[in-house]
């Protein structure tokens, strides 16, 4: 599975673009970090790659076609405040949404969800409202939901922000296993990679000098075999 982008500029329509055009390709398993200052467009790039936002200009292709809703094995872990805070959905039902519109048989689906909840230390909270969880528990529930459907690419928006050091390590270890044993492409926006630099396959750095409004996205591969820049 390949994510390819050409002359991509991201940003909301009717507003200024957030970056200069850049091209690239993500294909093989690995952990790819998107880093940069606040408001530079990291989350917008993530959503543009996922097809949730149209490119400001340029093209994004997944397996040669424009990203289409629900047709690709992509998963997304948004920031927890994106989940409707008024909806008292139980943790179990929340994670169950990770199967999408066509879950397996009910018993099998529930068994898989319970296994995921045990793995992410949430089994005692299965019937609680998602919004009664702590920030770290919410992140773990969202990761459990995202990987339930066995995605080929997983995109995470600041997943480390609400986690303590122990949970950060657990999440990064799991993502490392997914990336290298299951050959999943893990793309993360975050500010907390200091302790995990050695786990990263490559970095996308949003950079701008003081007198510039628009960022340049610089690609920093650690291992040229896993990620290529066009």
């Amino acid at each position, binding site marked *: 599975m390949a994510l390819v982008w050409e002359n991509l500029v991201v940003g909301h329509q009717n507003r200024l673009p957030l970056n200069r055009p850049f091209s690239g390709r993500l294909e093989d398993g690995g952990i790819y970090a998107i880093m940069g200052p606040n408001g530079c467009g990291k989350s917008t790039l993530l959503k543009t790659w996922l097809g949730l936002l149209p490119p400001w200009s340029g093209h994004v292709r997944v397996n040669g076609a424009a990203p289409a809703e629900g047709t690709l094995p992509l998963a997304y872990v948004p920031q927890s405040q994106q989940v409707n805070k008024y909806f008292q959905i139980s943790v179990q039902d929340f994670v169950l*949404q990770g199967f999408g519109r066509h879950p397996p048989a009910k018993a099998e689906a529930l068994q898989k969800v319970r296994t995921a909840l045990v793995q992410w230390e949430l089994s005692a909270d299965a019937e609680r409202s998602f919004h009664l969880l702590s920030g770290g528990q919410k992140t773990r529930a969202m990761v459990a939901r995202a990987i339930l459907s066995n995605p080929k690419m997983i995109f995470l928006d600041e997943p480390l922000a609400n986690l303590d050091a122990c949970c950060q390590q657990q999440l990064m270890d799991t993502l490392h296993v997914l990336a290298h044993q299951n050959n999943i492409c893990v793309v993360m926006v975050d500010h907390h990679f200091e302790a995990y630099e050695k786990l990263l396959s490559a970095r996308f750095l949003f950079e701008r000098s003081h007198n510039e409004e628009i960022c340049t996205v610089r690609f920093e591969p650690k291992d040229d075999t896993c990620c290529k820049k066009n």
Partner: protein
Amino acid sequence: MLQEKLIDFSLWQSFFDAEFAQMALLCTVLVGALCGLLSPTIVLKQRAYIGDTLAHLVFPGLVAGYFAAAAFGLPLWGAMMLGAVVTGLVGSFAVERLERILNLPPDSAAVLTLTGFFAAGVVAVSRLRGTRLDLERFLFGDVLNLTNLDAILLCVVLVVVGALLFLLRKDWDAWLSDAEFARLMGFRVALIEKLFPVVVTAAVLTGLVAVGGLMMSALLTVPAALLPPKSAFSLRTLLFSTILALIGLFAAFALDWPVGSTIVLVGFVLVLAKAIVVSLAQRSTAAKD
């Protein structure tokens, strides 16, 4: 005197022997059930102002219908209802589009649209000098003057709305929980986003004639405010709302108060009671800590 009235069963029996009272009872139950069905979606999507908004959005449609009936010899009631449906739907879509294109908060987009539409209706009415137009019925409702047609329309809308919420409940739930994730996972978000204003407009318009737009806003909000829903399709809120509507109807009869307002007051008292209980429970927990 109130106590005597409440326990005088012959008085109740004679009241509900009257055809208009039976129709009021039936339509109140239907409006209650309809509002209970839609309440979780309305509250979770933060669209509680939708009933009030629609009551104003349909105003120019009613006036246009009146003009059309006079100009083309159409049945007055049908032409006004058609006009109300058209401006209600157009206005609902206008609210959603303004919100997205101008990146406005939903309540600001609703207020801008409803005042614009209402102003257009007022201008149109100013051209109808010397003509009496009974518009109050649409704004404040009249549960004691409902017809078989109102009951049939309410039944149809109730069944259709119930079926759409039940059959697509996973899509509604995913959309209400996290619309972007739902879209990515292939839930029918595009369909739900088109259905939402249509379903709400149909429900509010059919309820308008019974209890009015302002009362519909309250009836759509109270059930989910009192019983926080875990799904867009909630039998708890449906049942609660139906019982609330019936209690309001009986209280209105016993106290000789307007039906719609009495139902809303009963709901509001329950909301206040819940707020007091929750507040006391929080203080008690804080004191123990």
